[in-house]
């Protein structure tokens, strides 16, 4: 309808402005010309003739450096160096180094990142509620950085003080409360320091262990290449289409637990949508929070939670951000259930 309107309005304009000569001319042009104002769409024919099939626009089976990083972060948890304190408390010590490092965030695209221990996102620190934690932080980067942990701890351990290049600092506090926490740099300008890659997941397991499961770590993030305040790529664990080209292998009926967080800068929200199945979502990873049984959840910046799911049928299940733009810019993957 709108198209019809547009055309007739244009035609009237033409007549009004151009006078008889113009009308005669246009009439003649339209009659003989190959340039119709309302044209036959390419839609029908091009779909048939083009060779690409649905959702195959980013096929790349090669295991690039960037993909290997994302895959490693999916299942790697850093439990630290464990010792027992005289009072029987468990002490966990972690080494965290800030390093400037170029990261491959999509096939062939290098991003000049600031990293914790050389990956974006940083390592997934893991401990149990009540453990004493010591994070030995060394800044080998070119800018001042810090580590701000979410959770409950003394304010002086909160990471608001800049640790300058070449300096060290040890963050020490007791792990609480249990759930899924995150950590990130808290040096100004904040958006730049976080967006550059200084963030990660931090799991505090409850004292009573959760049911054994196949556990996955997923950090939703984005990358702004031209520094215009909008991301060009959206990913989980820092690599576009990582698990689309290499689906995550899962066993039928196996309990899958995903530690999911949103550390995307410049966009208010990110989301997680699972195809052909439902999952239980525990906000902040707390069993005592009201949970949801759903196939789509959203998280604002810094929000996180646990997804628990079983797959009753074998086959490939897609998962992606339900913002289609994010999905098509890299935040899209598959579970392969056997």
């Amino acid at each position: 309808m709108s198209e019809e309107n547009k055309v007739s309005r244009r035609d009237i304009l033409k007549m009004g402005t151009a006078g008889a000569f113009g009308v005669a001319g246009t009439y003649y042009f339209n009659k003989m010309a190959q340039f119709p104002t309302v044209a036959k769409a390419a839609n029908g024919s091009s779909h048939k003739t083009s060779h690409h099939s649905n959702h195959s626009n980013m096929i790349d089976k090669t295991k690039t450096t960037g993909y290997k990083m994302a895959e490693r972060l999916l299942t790697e948890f850093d439990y630290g160096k464990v010792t027992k304190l005289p009072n029987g408390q468990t002490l966990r010590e972690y080494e965290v180094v800030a390093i400037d490092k170029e990261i491959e965030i999509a096939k062939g695209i290098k991003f000049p990142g600031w990293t914790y221990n050389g990956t974006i996102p940083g390592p997934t620190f893991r401990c149990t509620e009540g453990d004493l934690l010591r994070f030995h932080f060394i800044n080998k980067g070119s800018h001042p950085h810090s580590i701000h942990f979410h959770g409950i701890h003394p304010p002086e351990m909160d990471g608001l003080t800049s640790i300058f290049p070449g300096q060290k600092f040890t963050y020490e506090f007791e792990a609480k409360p249990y759930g899924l926490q995150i950590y990130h740099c808290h040096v100004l300008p904040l958006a730049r320091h976080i967006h550059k890659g200084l963030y990660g997941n931090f799991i505090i397991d409850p004292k009573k262990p959760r049911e054994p499961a196949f556990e996955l770590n997923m950090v939703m993030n984005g990358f702004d290449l031209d520094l215009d305040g909008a991301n060009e790529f959206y990913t989980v664990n820092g690599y576009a289409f990582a698990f689309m080209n290499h689906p995550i292998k899962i066993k039928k009926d196996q309990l899958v637990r995903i530690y999911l967080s949103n550390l995307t800068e410049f966009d208010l929200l990110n989301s997680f949508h699972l195809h052909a199945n439902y999952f239980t979502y525990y906000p902040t990873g707390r069993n005592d929070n009201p949970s949801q049984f759903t196939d789509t959840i959203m998280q604002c910046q810094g929000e996180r939670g646990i997804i628990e799911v079983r797959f009753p049928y074998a086959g490939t299940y897609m998962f992606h951000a339900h913002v289609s733009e994010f999905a098509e810019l890299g935040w899209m993957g598959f579970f392969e259930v056997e």
Partner: protein
Amino acid sequence: MKGKGIITGLIPLIILIGVLGFVLKNGAGVEKDPAAPIEVLNIERIKVTNTGFELSVSNTGPTPLTISQVMVNDSVWNYSVSPQATLERFEEGKINIAYPWVEGDPHTIKLITENGIITEGALAATTLTPETNRSNFLNYGLIGFYVGIVPITLGLLWYPFMKRFSRKWINSILALTVGLLLFLFVGTLADGFEIGAEAPSVFQGNMIVIIGASLTFLLLIGFDQYQQRKQEKKGYSPFGMALLMATGIGLHNFGEGLAIGSSFSLGEAALGTFLIIGFTLHNITEGIGIAAPLLKTTPRLKDFLLLGGIAGAPAILGTWVGAFIFSPIWGALFLGIGAGAIIQVIYVITKMLIDDHRTHREPSVSWLNLSGFTIGLLIMYFTAFFVKF
């Protein structure tokens, strides 16, 4: 003595080479690596085909670059590059993207290099790029014919009417012509800068326009003076003057053809149609201008056909170039040449007017002449409404 002279000439040159060599070898001493990678990728042309897009690109940056990802309308898309994804300096490449584009919709294509440098190309209203086949060629030629030759010939048809005028009135029509031409000069120059700005920055499109305009102006003046001295004639022959005008206007019309052809090939058919109508009306006045100098003689029909052809036919050529091989840098050059040619005609007519009034002991800026000049400007101003948006 002579040898000594040569040596004194060579010494500064040798020292200069030494300094340049030192700088090239050791750098300027300020910084060795640029803070960010400097990569300049240019999208020269986006061809829309039935299956998707075909981009002609070139690397005009100082270093080789690699194209690593392509996005269409905020979606990562499959593509292929020939000859290969890495382009050396000044190397050209072709990118093929199979994409189900939508007729009339805008499409944005982003090319991302290995270092994350983004180059954007946009299609305002996507439509199939015309194929270079015979029927298209003829169709575009016809458009050029209608925009160029027809209106100018129509304008020339006022000749018998103008022929009845007295000397003072003829002079005022010449003043009117100066008004028309001044408008065309500014417009042509502005169009040249606009197109030149789209060319890769390494070619400095604006300078191309300036170089084209000033060299054309000086060359035409020089050629005239040479001829005058050779033939020892005083003033210009009326036909020679009309020929000069026709040439300048022809180059200007080449630019108009370029605008029409490229707007069709960029998918802006509605704009193209408006341009056709607008330029056609606009160009009738150019015919009047060309006829003006002939009022003092008795030209033949053949002369009119020749003048109409010289002034109008370049529009056909421009339409072809615009539709099939459009390149901003050539567009800038041609429009620059056009502007130079037009300003030269303005110079010649003005000089002639002043001389004529001086021999008759009259002021050259008479009320009649001023009115003619003003009307000339205004005619152009208002008919240009059809082509400005």
